């Protein structure tokens, strides 16, 4: 089954917090509908992160392109970060710092860091969207979120021994998603550690009609590991299935 992505940060791409739900027969139908909303052959958009830290807010603007779920390229355009770029190729990611004129592969301890000071970690961005491979999925019931009926779906991480060869372990031990029962968009998500501690939450604040699909265009993320912070990610000028130059997704483009 094709991989699924639900909530997205840098659009189901770079910063994507993909999510999916599936259970038994009905799960396949939901999966297919969510997949239809969130999957794209290619995508281009303009984004803005509003990172709130206590009473302070910092803005990060960006232009992003993506091909499927494996290739993404983001360039920041706000004055402080102008020229900072990210390249994602499958499960690898690099960042380019224009001031230092240096590119760094995101790995090891950096994976836990927040991207550009946001509430979303690199690990979130790199997690495979193939949730069925990494999580056991179950339906927990139905609840309303902001007046909309939702399926409540729980994803429990599989033990590494049963994961497909070469795949990285799940980023979270448990995820709970509230999926809009009409539009098949994740409206709310909670991510937990093995200890049961709540690590992160997300809430979709705006869903936009893009062509024939519904897409979350404003999402708020809160990392519970940080003090009094939240990150709002807003997408605009969203274009799906556009023609993109393959050369944009290369190391050469990253350091150009």
């Amino acid at each position, binding site marked *: 089954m094709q991989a699924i992505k639900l909530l997205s940060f840098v659009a189901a791409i770079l910063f994507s917090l993909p999510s999916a739900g599936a259970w038994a027969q009905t799960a396949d139908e939901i999966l297919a509908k969510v997949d239809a909303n969130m999957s794209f052959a290619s995508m281009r958009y303009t984004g803005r992160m509003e*990172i709130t*830290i206590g009473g*302070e*807010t*910092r*803005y990060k603007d960006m232009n992003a392109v993506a091909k499927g779920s494996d290739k993404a390229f983001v360039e920041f*355009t*706000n*004055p*402080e970060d*102008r*020229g900072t770029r990210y390249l994602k*190729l499958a499960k*690898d990611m690099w960042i380019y710092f224009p001031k*230092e*004129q*240096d590119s760094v*592969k995101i*790995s*090891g*301890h*950096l994976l*836990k*860091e927040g991207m550009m*000071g946001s509430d979303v970690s690199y690990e979130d961005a790199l997690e495979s969207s193939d949730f069925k491979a990494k999580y056991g999925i179950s339906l927990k019931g139905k609840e309303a979120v902001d007046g909309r009926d939702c399926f409540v779906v729980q994803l429990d991480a599989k033990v590494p021994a049963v994961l497909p060869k070469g795949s990285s372990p799940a980023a979270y031990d448990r995820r709970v998603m509230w999926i809009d029962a009409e539009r098949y968009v994740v409206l709310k998500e909670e991510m937990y550690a093995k200890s049961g501690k709540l690590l992160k939450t997300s809430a979709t604040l705006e869903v936009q009609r893009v062509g024939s699909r519904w897409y979350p265009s404003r999402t708020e993320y809160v990392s519970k590991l*940080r*003090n009094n*912070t939240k990150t709002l990610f807003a997408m605009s000028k969203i274009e799906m299935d556009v023609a993109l130059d393959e*050369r944009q*997704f*290369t*190391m*050469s483009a990253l*350091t*150009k």
Partner: protein
Amino acid sequence: MQLRHSAAAIFLAAALAAAAQDSSGLAMGGSVLEQAYASYSQPGGLTTSGFGYGSSTTLGLSLDAKGQRARASASLETAVLDGTAAQAAWLLAKAGQVPTDELFVYANPAPTGGPGLMMAARIRTLYVKLDADWASLIAGRQVINYQRGAIWSPTDIFTRLDLTGLSPVRLGSDALRLTFPLGATSGLDIAGVPGTDPAQGSYSARLSGLVLGVDGALSASRDGSGKASNLGVDFKADLGLGFYGDFTYALPDSGASGNYRAAGGADWSFGDFIVAAEYYYNGGGPEADLLFPDSHNVYGDITWRASELLDVSLSVIWDISGESGTGILLASLSAAQNATLSVYGKAIWGEGDAKISGQGGAAIEVSF
């Protein structure tokens, strides 16, 4: 010689024109950095001795004209230097140690003891780039950065570091560079910095790629000024902590036995702290590396993420053999949108004949 310069000028003008005509995007940005400090230096150092006060105001501008197949880019700075900042620049100029991308201008006729005010102009980068499906050509002043570590990279014969500021700055080279992509993460990079005498120039071919999760490269280079040919290998990988290595073997033209230089380092984090450490061995002496001529050198940095807006870091570069080095304690606060406030203390041991000199100050940078 004149013919070659004329040809280069015509080529640059043509490429720039192509970039402008093909331009689908023009971007401009910049920053203003104001830095003020108090300093102390013992007699014999590279700055004036005793207590002093200095300040600098730097305007940085970057321009980019980007088209589908062509690009022109410039990064320029101009600065006003006052007090000991002007004195230090003046002494650097006297010692012939002006950074290669910098031009000092005396605001007034210099008195005997040095000027009280100077201006500096820096062309950090100024280049054009042309893209074909199979290759890219970059010509002009550019930073060719092959570096894996924070400070040292023996295989990189182009990058020169300016370590006089609060963080290392890579200086540009006036180069011609051809890059051939070999897939998304691999490529062949051929670069040359011919200078005024191509026989004295630097040239390199480098094959890089991502193999089994490791970023690695093999290179062969010719260092005309050092009169040596080099073979090098470098990599960066991840085993829970990030680690990297860089090794080059040099064969001198003189027929003397070969020598090697090597650097290795790692970075990792715990809690709110990020740590980096690096070691550099220079077996080639000052002929191979003027900035770090001694055999054993180390670098360490620890950064404390005190809050989401405040970082505090301590970094040290130490020449073990020469018993000299630099330490910087720096606190950086995101004071407002696009504004960073820094407070720092810097100590330099063993510069010239002075035992120690120091500097403490503050800087604020606003980007636009």
